[in-house]
């Protein structure tokens, strides 16, 4: 088998992308296309006293100007957060109202107040500039800590003190006791910098209302078109589900930012009905910085206690999470259930307590960005381990090793039951590949060139698959987290796989075909993947949280189980053999130990012509399945980063990066390694380059690629990616998911390497040249005073 599981099959989808024939949302243009441009608030917090659109209405090409009063008047509902978090005092979270077009108050720069619909994009944007909005400015707060202070500006009436929830997980008394008995306690105050996900394809929507059919079609940049339809229908009242088709065609990266349903899609759908035109909106990059959901933005105070042998006695965390001006779709879950349950890392820790306060500020809403909560947890745990090792004079790898979980399944004190892993093994694998033994020599060589070389570790756990539904529901999720699939064997034997997973760079058209090729022995070219269209695929929860492998592929396997069952029955009947004697391999359905066989396509044909089927069997060969796993999957990894710092400039170069990952069973190593390369680069971006910055007035200072530093090719090295497979017992393929590992594990490895190089633990992300230079100077001060 050259195309089955574990093979580096080249991507089937590449041809259209390398020839310019990809079909992204903005590439779609309908006859009679009109264009939308949004009128956005220039203020971070203000009352909207009035909107004067008279001049704009009279401008060339303008079809209509619509505002929030019309939108709410037509019954379009407020945007919601779909995961209910309960505060530790039992009170529900305080969700403030968020209208797609603001009616009375704007709460961040970029908040939309009106939309212009015009014949051309340029006409719409020019007219939007002419819409006069009368604002009364209000006081502004941008930092989460400031938002909690007495007298801070109040952003939503129903969230006193800007507090959304005050939530906890774990046993505080036991953790305090664990810390009290510790021989050593390490204390850290860390910020996790605010990021903008920045998929290279800006968000876009093309909405068309068909009056005759009373039916809407939306092309949109979505990671989960069925969820989009569900939310647009059930909560935003745009149209009932059977009157709304959502298509996510080729999507140019997501990283979380395209999970959510944004004001722009809602408004375009509604405007297409109001104007009787197909309405298109495509974000400019500057607009994307102003409106795409941000990620991270935590401030944390934490303590970890160790006994005299370096074993962890307790871990206590107090985090403030900035959720921005409104609660985005899954925002509440990110700093709670996707964060605190990861605090045990790869370690056997008996006592953990995590308290999280989520607050409103006058900034873009914050939601899941690649890793979502898990990078924030991992950054804390892994900086804690490295810092503690240095404080105790221990080798950081040895401190980790002493605390590793050794037996599986392992129950942590923070909800999770780890499925499988071999943490000492992957650490060893990483250390060998990274030639840790030769590091001191490399450090001396760098010193001879005037460079400070450092090495940093990160050994981390993830929770992927985002499931099971029952558990998610008990923790407040408003949706189920299963996946669905349909396997259609056509009469001539070719196969179509309809999946609720969505590929926006992950290569599903290849990897999903590989698992079918493996199972039925058919060529990957005879398997077609259908996804991203609510009219074609029955339902799906979409792609995020590294769930397409563990959940999406598992649903395909379940549907293939049913197909195989029917194939066996048909073959046994036709070949006059027992079902138990039928085997499927190499495109043949055979009777074991005989030369009796049917070609795969002959079985397909037999099922559809139905001339000779077993009594009572329905014709056709098509099965569907829903897969709801029993647990998350838990990929793990060991990253080792080496950096060189120029002490004169603070410039840091990542010169070596080694990852040893346990993703369970790997379907396509080439694609999995590509996911690691990209994820690690985003992690290096967070550690060294990226940060969303607002001034005190809430004006976004990082609104373009001239201000927000994206990792370029020269910022990263080639990566050494190693694998060790311990199959997950929680899904039929044993896969664990790989999409987020790099972004989760890389930031602490990079910062630990820099702090090793410069000899101080006092360094925040992003470690820009200026930040590193200052940290280095501050650390050298006592020496200078001597």
């Amino acid at each position, binding site marked *: 088998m050259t195309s089955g599981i574990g093979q580096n099959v080249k991507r089937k989808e590449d041809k259209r992308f390398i020839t310019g024939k990809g079909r992204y949302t903005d590439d779609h243009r309908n006859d009679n296309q009109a264009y939308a441009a949004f009128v956005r608030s220039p203020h971070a917090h203000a009352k909207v006293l009035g909107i004067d659109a008279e001049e704009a209405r009279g401008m060339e090409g303008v079809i209509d100007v619509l505002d929030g009063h019309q939108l709410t008047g037509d019954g379009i509902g407020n945007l919601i957060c779909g995961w209910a978090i309960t505060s530790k005092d039992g009170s529900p979270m305080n969700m403030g109202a968020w209208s797609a077009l603001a009616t009375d108050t704007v709460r961040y720069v970029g908040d939309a107040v009106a939309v212009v619909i015009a014949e051309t994009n340029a006409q719409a944007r020019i007219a939007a500039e002419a819409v006069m909005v009368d604002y009364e400015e209000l006081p502004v707060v941008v930092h989460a800590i400031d938002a909690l202070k007495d007298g801070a500006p109040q952003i939503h009436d129903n969230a006193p003190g800007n507090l959304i929830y005050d939530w906890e997980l774990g046993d505080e008394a036991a953790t305090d006791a664990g810390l009290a008995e510790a021989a050593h306690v390490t204390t850290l105050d860390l910020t996790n910098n605010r990021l903008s996900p*920045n*998929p290279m394809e800006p968000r876009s929507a093309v909405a068309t209302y068909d009056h005759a059919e009373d039916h809407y079609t939306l092309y949109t940049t979505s990671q989960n078109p069925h969820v989009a339809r569900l939310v647009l229908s059930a909560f935003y009242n745009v149209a009932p589900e059977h009157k709304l088709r959502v298509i996510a065609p080729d999507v140019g990266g997501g990283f979380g930012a395209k999970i959510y349903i944004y004001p722009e899609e809602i408004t375009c759908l509604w405007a297409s009905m109001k104007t009787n035109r197909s309405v298109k909106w495509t974000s400019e990059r500057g607009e994307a910085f102003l409106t795409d959901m941000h990620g991270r933005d935590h401030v944390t105070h934490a303590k970890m206690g160790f006994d005299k042998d370096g074993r962890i006695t307790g871990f206590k965390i107090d985090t403030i999470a900035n959720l921005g001006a409104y609660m985005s779709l899954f925002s509440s879950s990110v700093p709670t259930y996707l964060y605190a349950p990861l605090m045990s890392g790869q370690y056997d820790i008996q006592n953990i307590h995590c308290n999280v306060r989520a607050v409103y500020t006058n900034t873009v809403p914050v939601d899941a960005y690649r890793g979502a909560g898990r990078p924030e947890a991992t950054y804390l745990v892994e900086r804690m381990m490295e810092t503690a090792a240095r404080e105790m004079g221990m080798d950081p790898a040895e401190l980790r090793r002493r605390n590793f979980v050794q037996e599986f399944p392992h129950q942590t004190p923070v909800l999770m039951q780890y499925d499988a892993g071999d943490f000492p093994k992957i650490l060893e694998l990483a250390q060998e590949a990274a030639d840790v033994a030769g590091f001191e020599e490399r450090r001396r060589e760098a010193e001879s060139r005037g460079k400070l070389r450092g090495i940093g570790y990160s050994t981390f756990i993830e929770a992927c698959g985002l499931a099971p539904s029952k558990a998610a529901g008990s923790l407040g999720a408003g949706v189920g987290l299963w996946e669905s699939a349909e396997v259609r064997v056509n009469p001539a034997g070719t196969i179509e796989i309809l999946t609720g997973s969505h590929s926006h760079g992950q*290569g599903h058209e290849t990897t999903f075909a590989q698992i079918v090729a493996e199972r039925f022995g058919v060529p990957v070219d005879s398997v077609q993947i259908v996804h991203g269209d609510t009219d074609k695929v029955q339902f799906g929860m979409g792609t995020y949280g590294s769930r397409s492998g563990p959940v999406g592929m598992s649903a395909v396997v379940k549907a293939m189980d049913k197909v195989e069952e029917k194939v066996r029955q048909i073959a046994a009947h036709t070949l006059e053999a027992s079902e138990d004697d039928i085997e499927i391999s190499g495109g043949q359905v055979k009777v074991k130990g005989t030369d009796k066989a049917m070609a795969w396509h002959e079985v397909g044909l037999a099922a559809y012509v139905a001339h000779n089927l077993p009594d009572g069997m329905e014709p056709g060969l098509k099965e569907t399945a829903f897969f709801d796993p029993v647990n998350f999957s838990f990929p793990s990894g060991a990253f080792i980063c080496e950096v060189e710092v120029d002490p004169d400039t603070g410039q840091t170069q990542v010169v070596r990066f080694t990852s040893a990952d346990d993703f369970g069973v790997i379907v396509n190593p080439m694609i999995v390694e590509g996911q690691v390369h990209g994820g690690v680069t985003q992690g290096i971006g967070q550690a060294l380059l990226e940060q969303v910055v607002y001034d005190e007035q809430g004006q976004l200072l990082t609104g373009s690629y001239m201000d927000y530093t994206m990792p370029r*090719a020269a910022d990263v090295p080639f990566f050494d990616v190693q694998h060790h497979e311990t199959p997950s017992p929680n899904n039929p393929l044993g896969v664990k998911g790989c999409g987020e590992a790099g972004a989760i594990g890389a930031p602490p490895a990079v910062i630990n390497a820099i702090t090793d190089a410069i000899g101080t633990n006092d360094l925040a992300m992003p470690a820009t040249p200026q930040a590193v230079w200052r940290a280095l100077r501050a650390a050298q001060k006592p020496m200078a005073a001597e």
Partner: protein
Amino acid sequence: MTKVTMKVNGRKVGADVPDQTLLSEFLRENLRLTGTHVGCDTSQCGACAVHVNGKVVKACTALAVSLEGAEVTTIEGVANGELHPMQVAFNDNHGLQCGFCTPGMIMAGIDMVNRYREEGRELDAAAIRHELEGNICRCTGYHNIVKSIQDAAAKM
């Protein structure tokens, strides 16, 4: 409105366009060559890179009317009956994931290989990374893009 004519992918084309029309808009909206992508508004990302008179140009930085008589090649015009070695290399080396930056990467890659060859300079990995300053990818971490360009350079 100004009438502009140019040769795009070997075909003579012309249209009356508003003076402020960018080459990227002209290609995407007038000619419906949607392989040229627009990923930013400040000429940093390079997703719109095309060849104008044999040199790589960011199509979002050029006004269509300033290119009267120019010869333009877009990603759609790169394959000449069969795929260009740079296109093959991106497939062979998994040099793309979501595919959005890919047309610009391929156009920049072809240009840098040709340019270094003409100048007799060695296009090693460090040079490729330096040359990619103007092309941003969010998916691949550049690892396989650099390998793709190295691979294509050996075969072009």
